[in-house]
């Protein structure tokens, strides 16, 4: 797995430079709770043999709003909608309510203090 560090400001330009629809395949988006901060990861792979997974990651504060990559990668809306509910983070242009019921407390996958 190849890991490439990025930040919230450079995220859209990094992914727009890297992603080509006929060569790369977007797998999923993930978030890991590190306690004080969160690590958000975006996984890609190639349509070729042999291929390895490429991971763009950013260490952010849980209260910051993360930009969305829906304009660059169209099918990312499902992964973003899932993380907004399960991890209680904010992503641009994404509403809560896709996974959990409206009266359920969001963020069940966060670490309990």
């Amino acid at each position: 797995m190849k890991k490439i560090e990025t930040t919230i400001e450079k995220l859209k330009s990094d992914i727009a430079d890297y992603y080509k629809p006929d060569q790369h395949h977007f797998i999923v988006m993930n978030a890991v709770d590190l306690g004080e901060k969160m690590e958000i990861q975006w996984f890609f792979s190639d349509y070729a043999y042999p291929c390895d997974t490429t991971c763009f990651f950013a260490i952010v504060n849980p209260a910051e709003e993360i930009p969305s990559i829906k304009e660059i990668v169209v099918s990312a809306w499902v992964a973003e909608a899932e993380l907004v509910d399960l991890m209680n983070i904010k992503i641009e242009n994404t509403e809560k309510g896709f996974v959990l019921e409206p009266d359920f407390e969001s963020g069940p996958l966060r670490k309990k203090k």
Partner: protein
Amino acid sequence: MGKQYEIPVGAQHISLLEPLHFKFTTVNEKIKSTEANVFYVHRGIELACCSKFKFRQVSFVVGRVCGLCSISHSTAYSQVAEKLLKIEIPTRAKYLRMLVIELDRIHSHLLCLSHVAENSGFEALFMKTMQYREFSMELLEAVCGNRVQYDFAIVGGVSRDLKPEIGRWILERMKTFMPQLEELVDIYQNNWTLSLKNKGIGVLTKENAMRLNVVGPFARAAGLAIDVRNETEDLLPWKEVGFEMITDTAGDVHARNMLRLREIYVSIRIIENIINGLPESALITETKAFPDGEATVRLEAPRGELFYYAKGNKTQVLERLKIKAPTFSNVGAMAETFKGNEYGSVPAIIASYDPCLSCTAR
């Protein structure tokens, strides 16, 4: 301009095997747009695997995420745990895992084909395909001890060995199955009433497939050559046992049916190669280490690409486990490709996508 109606194909529907919900906006029965809602059976498995269960027990928990691709989940988890523990499994265990994955692929593809036939109105073909599928359940019971929950792949290797007489019996049953498979190929290809419901319906073009990042037979029928067995060889030797990629160009329901049937031929060839050339070695690698670091694994389940990410922290309980099921990647594309089709073809199109909602909404 006709009147616009909003019709749901709801969580409960007579033709659905899986609990999903689409709300269609239609004009004179032609679909204009769709809204999808899929998280009906969310059980919180990722949270349970990181809090309640120890890392060796998690392979049994994730085997119960899905009933049809149970072996794919437990194999992928065992591979990612072995990467975290930094151990290698013996060669006989690798070949036995591949054998059960291919047997599982046969029974899953036959189930999907029978469901498409039922939703297209051809109930007799549904019954016939199910009758021919029964032998694969008996073979899986002989190899793994149970028809549905295999509990076969564990961290470090596999739990049971393959007896030589069971291997010979599998080869005999494959020989009995081949003429039955030819008969099914003939009916799915040439039957005129089935082609009215299947040809030209639910088309996905290759550009849309690349743009929407679809996986599995759904993508291969559109011409996009994506198959994890073709892309990675470090964990399981697929090319050595005779794997070949199959693609099609039409992208409609008929093309997906024929693609699944051709993949069954490839699976039968792989099973024969494995049984005839099974190496002798141990079954499990023992270790007393704890998982540490992070790792990812991709595996080809019958419905597409399965992805696992795990992070360990040197204790018995994992820190984070992320599961991405193949239908999760296809949800966006499913909503897009309904456009322009008639409302009456919706059950057949949904069945040909082969959705597995228990994997998606784990």
